[in-house]
């Protein structure tokens, strides 16, 4: 008996997912930010509808626009990774399949995020 923690200490603040309300809360915080960011994104895309390469390139090269689109992508990816985790945990009950899908989902979000941010950086800083 090297473990000196009482059983109550080990489970306090933790739900069945071993992380308490952390998942719920992060999903909500991202959602609140996305209300503003998605409305900006919609307005941005509407204003560029039918625009040619030069116009779109110039619009995305503006620091504020690049910042807002970058935030939309990043916060959106955090939100959707948490959401997809919920879907996977609800429907996939075989543990190894569950783990594989969760890992693939994380990879997907990181790749989409890094690619988008890289593109935005190149657009703003690359001239």
């Amino acid at each position: 008996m090297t473990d000196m923690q009482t059983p109550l200490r080990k489970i306090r603040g933790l739900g069945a997912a071993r992380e308490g309300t952390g998942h719920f809360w992060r999903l909500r915080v991202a959602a609140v930010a996305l209300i503003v960011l998605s409305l900006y994104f919609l307005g941005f895309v509407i204003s560029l509808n039918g625009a040619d390469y030069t116009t779109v390139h110039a619009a995305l090269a503006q620091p504020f626009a690049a910042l807002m689109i970058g935030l939309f992508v990043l916060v959106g990816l955090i939100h959707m990774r948490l959401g997809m985790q919920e879907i996977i945990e609800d429907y996939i009950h075989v543990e190894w399949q569950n783990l594989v899908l969760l890992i693939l989902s994380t990879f997907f979000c990181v790749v989409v995020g890094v690619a988008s941010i890289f593109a935005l950086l190149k657009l703003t800083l690359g001239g």
Partner: protein
Amino acid sequence: MSRKTAAAARPLSPHLQIYRLIPTMLMSIVHRITGGALYFGTLLLAWWLIAAATSEHAFDIANAFFGSWLGRLILLGYTWALLHHLLGGIRHLIWDTGSWMGKETSTRLARATIIGSVVLTLLVWIAGYAARGAF
């Protein structure tokens, strides 16, 4: 081994197919579906950004796809999914505070979500075509 047999013998709570479909339930299902669609929709956004950062040629290819009838159909669906998930999300944030959870109010909110998302989608596309100088 014992874990599997125990799980198989355990009674399951009834799922979707046993309940009568009501607006709040339908909006909950659609919220999850639109969320899943938006998940993969980010590929389109990433493609658009990478194309714009790569070259005029790459951008024109992406633009041609988004401008085709299939591309427009996908973007129309993307717009609706985004707006529906946005309104549904706001509804969930309201419910998180414990407000408007009564039977009549929650049903009204569910109806407002579907009607609002369709109306806003139409408005966004009208604004989009106006920005293009279509009117």
